[in-house]
């Protein structure tokens, strides 16, 4: 089943400079898609259009069978949780606890259930000891963790992450990515869209969508993309470590199967020593 269907979507902040130039793609229910592309190519703009924060110029956005419009905006937004690129822009509550509870209050969640859920979400992101703190007085990574808790607590059908882990320490990042894959296991119909510059992260998703100056230029599995040197060169992409290593070893004469793991690459090296 289709979760998101986008067709010929265009958008510009001012008339002279189109930012999205007619983008079409579909995302299946339960899919985990990365959106990548260089700074300013339109990723955050696209995500704001998907939740109706910006109004498209033309084209259509269909979410779970419903075309997004003014009437169903609220009901569609209730299905989607978004972590914005700058967490400061999304804090509402005066304390971490209030902030995480905010969306639940809006959904009329009973108080005791709410307290429980807020605590669960806060501990999942490692912020349980910070419930009484003010979100704007936290460190960068702590802010990102709270922003992620804000989204998780809503138990969305669609989770949109706009560089949500860009300021987390390596183990924090791993914890969050593990948490999301755990959530997808528990709920196979959870659809995840992740905007990221982290190649290793997108390498683990189901599909990569590449935007380039407002156009969708590529939509394929990570292995299809990173197996194709021409594409990598054409779009000047950075590749995951294992792919870089493989390519550079091939250049000095080693031969590998398709998509070897690090161990397999290692084996070739110590066998030939």
């Amino acid at each position: 089943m289709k979760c998101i269907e986008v067709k010929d979507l265009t958008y510009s902040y001012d008339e002279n400079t189109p930012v999205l130039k007619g983008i079409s793609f579909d995302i299946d229910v339960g899919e985990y898609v990365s959106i990548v592309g260089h700074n300013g190519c339109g990723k955050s703009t696209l995500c704001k259009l998907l939740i109706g924060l910006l109004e498209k110029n033309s084209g259509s956005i269909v979410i779970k069978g419903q075309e997004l419009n003014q009437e169903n905006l609220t009901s569609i937004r209730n299905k989607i949780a978004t972590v914005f690129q700058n967490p400061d822009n999304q804090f509402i509550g005066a304390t971490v606890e209030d902030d995480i509870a905010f969306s639940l209050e809006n959904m009329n969640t009973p108080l005791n259930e709410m307290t429980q859920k807020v605590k669960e979400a806060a501990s999942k992101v490692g912020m349980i000891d910070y419930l009484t703190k003010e979100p704007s007085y936290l460190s960068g990574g702590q802010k990102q963790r709270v922003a992620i808790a804000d989204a998780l607590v809503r138990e969305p059908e669609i989770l949109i992450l706009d560089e949500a882990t860009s300021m987390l320490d390596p183990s924090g990042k791993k914890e969050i990515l593990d948490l999301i894959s755990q959530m997808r296991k528990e709920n196979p119909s959870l659809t995840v869209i992740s905007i990221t510059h982290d190649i290793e992260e997108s390498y683990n998703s189901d599909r990569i969508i590449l935007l380039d100056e407002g156009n969708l230029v590529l939509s394929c599995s990570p292995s299809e993309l990173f197996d194709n040197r021409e594409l990598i060169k054409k779009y000047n992409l950075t590749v995951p470590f294992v792919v870089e290593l493989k390519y550079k070893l091939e250049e000095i004469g080693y031969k590998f199967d398709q998509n070897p793991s690090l161990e397999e690459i290692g084996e070739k090296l110590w066998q030939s020593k």
Partner: protein
Amino acid sequence: MAIKINNLSFVYMKKTPNETKAIDDISLEIPEGKVTAIIGHTGSGKSTLIQTFNGLLTPSSGTVEIDDFVITNNPKKNKKIKELRKKVSIVFQFPEYQLFEETVEKDVAFGLKNYGYKEEDAIKEAHNALTVVGLDESFYKRSPFELSGGEKRRVAIAGIIALNPEILILDEPTAGLDPEGSKIILNLISKLNEEGKTIIIVTHDMNIVLNNSDHVIVMNNGKIAFEGTPNKLFASDVSNYSIDIPRLFEFCLLLKEHNVNIDIDKIKNVDDLINQLKERK
């Protein structure tokens, strides 16, 4: 100019229920002319520490010494702070905190004008700095608030580059940058370092630590957990530091384990490894 930190502590919201000791009696020296990486768990005190280096935050106790400047817990005594800030500049973790002018070029030129540059000259320098960070003239007249995340960070970095400080402090300079942008900034950092600048990078990217730094400081809970070279750090037990061993380094360790003869200390990036393997072949 080295930075000498003596028994430094910093407490946020002193005497309130939310009192937080972010820096806990730290003493250390940041070497002159080197690239030092500061890493560690979320909330370990990295951003707080670097903000004491040019007096943006006043120590709760202890001192920071740079050249003949001494920053103490008495703000009235920190007289020459304006002069110090000419020498020590910080790019903040959130570029938004640094942007405020109506156009990008004015924003980058602001600091220079403050230091007495004529408008014209300041704008010219600003254009140069913008070119360096990969922003062309189409950005000059735009509002810095109506940019993408990565574009904002580039503007913030340009604003500091334009000032040409002796000590450059960058708080997660590559967060939000595309891979090409990261490369530009890291190359710039190397170039400035070769010209003699002291550089401090706060980062969560272990590849930057391995590839671009001479010296690394690991913070944990407001204290220093490790200080030394990147290779020494990654060869030691890092399980308590919330950091990661770079994939490349891990792979080299694996090769060593299987008796492949390589010199890990000389490997900072994939090309270094390839070259060693090539020589061996």
